[in-house]
């Protein structure tokens, strides 16, 4: 048995399909009871990795350990994992009850016990009384729940979920996200969740692996990913981000003085090794960390003059796109819609001040 924080462990796992490298030397560990997400655009290898965990694909190199046991010799039907498929894969020739009991057929469990566990699982996914329905009599959300119950009834060590919410409409998806999280906390099973939806990953996960081109760019908690991305790629993929090129002029006491395109001389907290005198780096800042004001603020924030190009009303916030002299791309600025905020000066083409706090600047290496 292993300690709790390397319950699932990948060591140097790669998968090649002919000349295509789907998964490229991945190594990380997942703790017991975690809600771990594999996040990335389509074709980034996240589904391939999930299928390797399930045993449907075998790694070209490396080894996967689940609860300390190497998986390369274990066929998929003997693995301590169960999967919720993207299209749910509900058996059309069986009713819901038989679908749920499918995995228990040969498990030497008494009939009454199977029945009890099926009812319990239906209860758990809030589908009591659905036992006699067929898959074609279920809505998308109901199918999703049946698939979830069918996988959980086997009491796997690890539950694998392949974009299970992808086919649901937005409202239902958000509802299911909350339910899924609550369910995971109550059953305590380790969930590995594949998604391309960064918002979904941030909402659900305890930790996220951001993947592109078969590599894991960063494995961190949602907060860390959002506030401390390690690369431009991660910062760009998680949420919206403004990027500015800059050169390091000086580094002192954990603070860097930079010459940033369009913003001029700015200071920012510097904790990474790549921030060295003379280095060309990227400065990133989130739209909601930027402030627009008609007059220059007197609280000593960094500031620069800008022109408002366009704005978009999003209900709970306003998005402005402002151009700064010397910068090619406009800055995105998000301002929470409080109702009281009806600053007449924020009209299109008006010239205003763009300010930021030094701590909200994120320094990233140039790719």
């Amino acid at each position, binding site marked *: 048995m292993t300690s709790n924080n390397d319950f699932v462990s990948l060591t140097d796992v790669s998968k090649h399909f002919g000349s295509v490298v789907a998964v490229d030397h991945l190594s990380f560990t997942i703790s017991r009871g975690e809600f771990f997400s594999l996040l990335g655009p389509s074709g980034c290898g996240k589904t391939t990795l999930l299928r390797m965990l*399930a045993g*449907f694909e075998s790694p070209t190199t490396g080894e996967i350990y689940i609860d300390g046991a190497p998986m390369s010799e274990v066929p998929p*039907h003997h693995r301590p994992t169960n*999967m919720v*498929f993207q299209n749910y*894969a509900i*058996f059309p*020739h*069986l009713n819901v009850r038989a679908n749920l009991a*499918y995995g228990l057929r040969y498990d030497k469990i008494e009939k009454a016990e199977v029945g009890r566990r099926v009812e319990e699982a239906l209860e758990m996914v809030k589908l009591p009384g659905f036992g006699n329905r067929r898959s074609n009599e279920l809505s998308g959300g109901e199918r999703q729940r049946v698939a979830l119950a069918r996988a959980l009834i086997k009491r796997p060590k690890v539950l694998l979920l392949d974009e299970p919410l992808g086919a649901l409409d937005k409202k239902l998806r958000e509802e299911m996200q909350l339910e899924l999280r609550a369910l995971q906390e109550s059953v305590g099973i380790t969930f590995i969740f594949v998604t391309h939806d960064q918002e979904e990953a941030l909402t659900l996960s305890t930790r996220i692996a951001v993947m592109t081109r078969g590599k894991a760019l960063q494995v961190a908690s949602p907060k860390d990913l959002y506030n401390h991305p390690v690369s431009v790629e991660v910062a760009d993929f998680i949420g919206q981000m403004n990027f500015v090129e800059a050169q390091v002029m000086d580094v002192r006491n954990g603070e860097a003085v930079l010459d940033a395109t369009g913003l001029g001389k700015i200071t920012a907290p510097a904790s990474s090794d790549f921030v060295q005198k003379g280095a060309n780096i990227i400065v990133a800042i989130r739209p909601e960390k930027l402030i627009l004001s008609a007059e220059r603020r007197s609280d000593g924030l960094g500031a620069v003059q800008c022109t408002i190009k366009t704005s978009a009303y999003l209900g709970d916030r306003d998005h402005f796109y402002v151009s700064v002299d010397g910068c090619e791309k406009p800055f995105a600025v998000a301002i929470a819609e409080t109702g009281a905020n009806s600053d007449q000066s924020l009209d299109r083409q008006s010239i205003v001040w763009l300010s930021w706090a030094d701590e909200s600047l994120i320094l990233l290496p140039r790719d």
Partner: protein
Amino acid sequence: MNETTIEVSALAPSPKSWGRRLYAWYLRSDALKGFTLLSPTLLVMGLTMLIPFGIMVTISFWAQIGFEFDTTFTLANYGEGVEQPLYRALLLRSLAISGTCAVVTVLVSYPMAYYVAFHVHKHKMTWIILMTVPFFTSYLLRVFAWKVILGYNGVINSGLKGLGLIEEPLAFLLYSPTAVVITLAHAWAAFAILPIYISLEKIDRSLLEAATDLGDGPVKRFLGVTLPLSMPGVIAATLMIFIPTVGDYVTPALVGGPDGIMIANLIQAQFGLVNNWPMGAALAIDMMVVVAVISLLYIWLTRKITEKIA
């Protein structure tokens, strides 16, 4: 007539010709469009199936006197069909041979269809065309080919003798029900492979992965998912072989021998040598009714069984 015209034109926004109106009605009615598509087939079916069938039914209630028909209504032919032990025996034998043939063909075809559906990834069409290659030669030639293979001094017997495995040729190979089953199974294999292949091809591959994921090994998965989901194809294949082979008379006549004669040979004789058309018609209708009843029973039974499993 006058009244309705006024009424319709009052409802219509602008006066339309009857042709336009008919055309609009045609566009709105799915049933009408369907019938239009079917009309050539319906015409042919009506002329070449229903009318001869009607004639057959009529004749079956007549009697043959020499070269003339006695057209007074009689059930004598049907009575004789049930009472005569020969007719009954031949019908039962036909059903047994065709049933065996259907089962054998489906059993042999299933693995082939399975292989193409699940293990052939490129050029599936080529494989399917190759399976229909036996149809490139005429039915009669294929039956004769089997005669050569199964014969007393045929390919199998002389081969086995050459290898020293047998002293005397195997007599049961030709002119026996076995020969009929083998020949029919070969002739009809493509009709079994195609429906089974289609039902296997339609199975969502993620269902198979789901079964594996839930702990099924290959055999359990086949019994739990693949077989039940391919049952429609299996049922279609069984019926597509059983129904036409019951009425086959060429194969039993050529390779069946006295023990392999089937009911259709007798029916043929009634219309030929025996020259008792009413009897032949009655026997043909008897056979049709029995086959229809068995087929319906089979569909009902398989449906019940699959429901039980589910």
